[in-house]
């Protein structure tokens, strides 16, 4: 148990180190100069362009040797300083991300958890049950093969453009100011439903299929046949199968985090939702590399934390590790 957690932590530390290094290296070793891009966007006079180049190079710390830049990068990172946005100069990147992150999390966390629980339950019910299987399976495959942005587009078109039941742009009515008021909460909920549904449905399909296939494997395992031979009720056998099948599903949850996150980013773009996804799009369009870098780091940290939570959940749920902790294998 302790070595398991230690190993995981070592992996995550290494991952963080590699990610920070990649994040630092990409803009510096890629063709194209962010400072030049910034200045050409300003369309400044030739003379002032030269002065500006010097100014920005200094401002972004690009005028020292590469190894020093790397150390400075880490030093700034430790202090939570991700640099200054080019798009909204001189606002710090951290500010912009902190503003956007709650919206993304409000979509992601409920979507991940609810689709995982609902998908697993429905998938387990469908396994080896003809009628349910024949409906859940095709539906699940269609959903899990659907690109997030397309489902978002279809939902927005059906519920927004055609029937006009739900709003499809933004996170709350423009007449309101964000705050802890009932009006704002209600408005927020209405704008939240469709992006949430896009994320939920794609995930739901994947989990339902995964669980359905897992249960079939488990029902063919020796212990299931043995229980059957003993005359155990089917419900009991299925319950054992479910508990065994849940473990690989939890491992799958850790693996799926990156994909769901990508889904959230593009879903936000479709719904113009003011989260990290829309921020990524703005950063790309405005060639705001520092913002993009900052977002990359925050995503890495978020995924690492989520991975660790899943690891802990795995240890808590797997009875074998629990027994191991009590000291008798």
């Amino acid at each position, binding site marked *: 148990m302790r070595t398991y957690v230690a190993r995981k932590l070592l*992996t995550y530390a*290494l*991952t963080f180190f*590699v*990610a920070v290094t*990649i*994040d630092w290296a*990409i*803009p510096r070793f*890629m*063709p*194209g100069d962010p400072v030049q891009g910034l200045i050409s966007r300003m369309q400044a006079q030739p003379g002032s362009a030269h002065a500006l180049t010097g100014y920005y190079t200094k401002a972004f710390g690009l005028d020292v040797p590469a190894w020093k830049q790397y150390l400075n990068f880490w030093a700034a990172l430790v202090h939570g300083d991700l640099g200054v946005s080019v798009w909204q100069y001189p606002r710090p990147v951290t500010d912009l991300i902190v503003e956007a992150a709650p919206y993304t999390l409000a979509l992601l966390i409920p979507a991940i958890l609810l689709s995982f629980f609902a998908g697993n339950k429905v998938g387990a019910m469908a396994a080896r049950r003809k009628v349910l299987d024949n409906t859940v399976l*095709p539906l699940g*495959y*269609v959903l*899990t*093969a*659907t*690109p*997030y*942005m*397309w489902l978002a*587009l*279809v939902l*927005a*078109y059906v519920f*927004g*453009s*055609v029937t006009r039941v739900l709003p*499809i742009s933004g996170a709350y009515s423009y007449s309101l100011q964000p705050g802890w008021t009932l009006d704002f909460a209600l408005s927020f909920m209405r704008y939240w439903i469709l992006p949430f549904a896009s994320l939920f449905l794609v995930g739901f399909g994947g989990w339902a*299929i995964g669980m359905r*296939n897992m249960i*079939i*494997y488990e029902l*063919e395992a020796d212990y299931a046949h043995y229980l059957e031979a003993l005359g155990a009720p089917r419900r009991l056998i299925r319950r054992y199968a479910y508990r065994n099948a849940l473990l690989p599903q939890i491992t799958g949850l850790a*693996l799926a*985090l*990156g*994909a769901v*996150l*990508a889904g959230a*980013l*593009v879903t936000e*773009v*479709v719904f113009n939702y003011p989260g990290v996804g829309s921020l*990524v*799009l703005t*950063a*790309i*369009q405005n*060639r705001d*590399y520092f913002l*993009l870098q900052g*977002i*990359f780091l925050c*995503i*890495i940290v978020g*995924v*690492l934390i989520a*991975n660790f939570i899943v690891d802990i959940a795995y240890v808590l749920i797997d009875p074998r590790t629990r027994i191991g902790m009590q000291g008798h294998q």
Partner: protein
Amino acid sequence: MTTAPVGRVRHELIYVARHNTKLMIGAGFVLAMLVLALVGPFLTSQAPLAFGGDLQQAPSSAHWFGTTTNGQDVFSQFVYGLRASFIVGTLGGGLAALIGMLVGFVAGYRGGIIDEILTMLTNVVLVIPTLAVLITIAAYVTTRGFVTEAIFIGATSWPWAARAVRAQTFSLVSREFVDVARLSGRRSWKIIATEIAPNMSSYLLMMFILLFGGAILIGATLDFIGLGPSNAISLGLMMNNAVLWSALLLGTWWWFIPPGLGIVAIVGGLYVMNVGLDEVFNPRLREM
């Protein structure tokens, strides 16, 4: 066992495969899209990026899938986009399968410190969210093509395949026939190629199918946020353009419905095919 049953087993596999509805339906969808991608460009007179005179037309006999706000032919874009998806899927999925097999075989066959290092590397790449890296890299590359995109995708989406291959290799390495092959003094890579890989060929095939579908989805996502290839069309780019030109508000559904449907048909077809293949190779899973 004599050699006769091998032939019979292969025969039986083909029989089971042809009678597996999931495999046939899935393969049918994928093949239909492939044929459309190959033949489609000959059925349309307008180039995918050319601007015609008909603006924002609903589907008709002149424009089967309608036209965009700028007068581009949606059917033409769709069939060329399908081509792009198959290219990205084949190259990206193929590269990911290659790297995954290389890392998995070496780690599983060698074991020891090499395995420790490769497993650590795999786990690190596994945790880093692929799309975040791809976005950052793609944003810096000014001229992008499908091949670069596929290479980026392949280079980042191999870890789970490597893990799967490694686990399978581990279970095969301790078998007698591998020991015999080792005693005969053959080179390691030859043993992997002739003794280990063939014994998990069904597994490798299914792995490639999943990587192929995954690469198509990642490619579409990248294209959708505007990091797709420049001066070309793809299914993701079509959706990107539809959103940029507010197809939702204008109600031009024919602009964004076909590209997504195309992706669902290919990727969904691949996934269903995979379950079918699983049942063909693993008799325990077949419906009773």
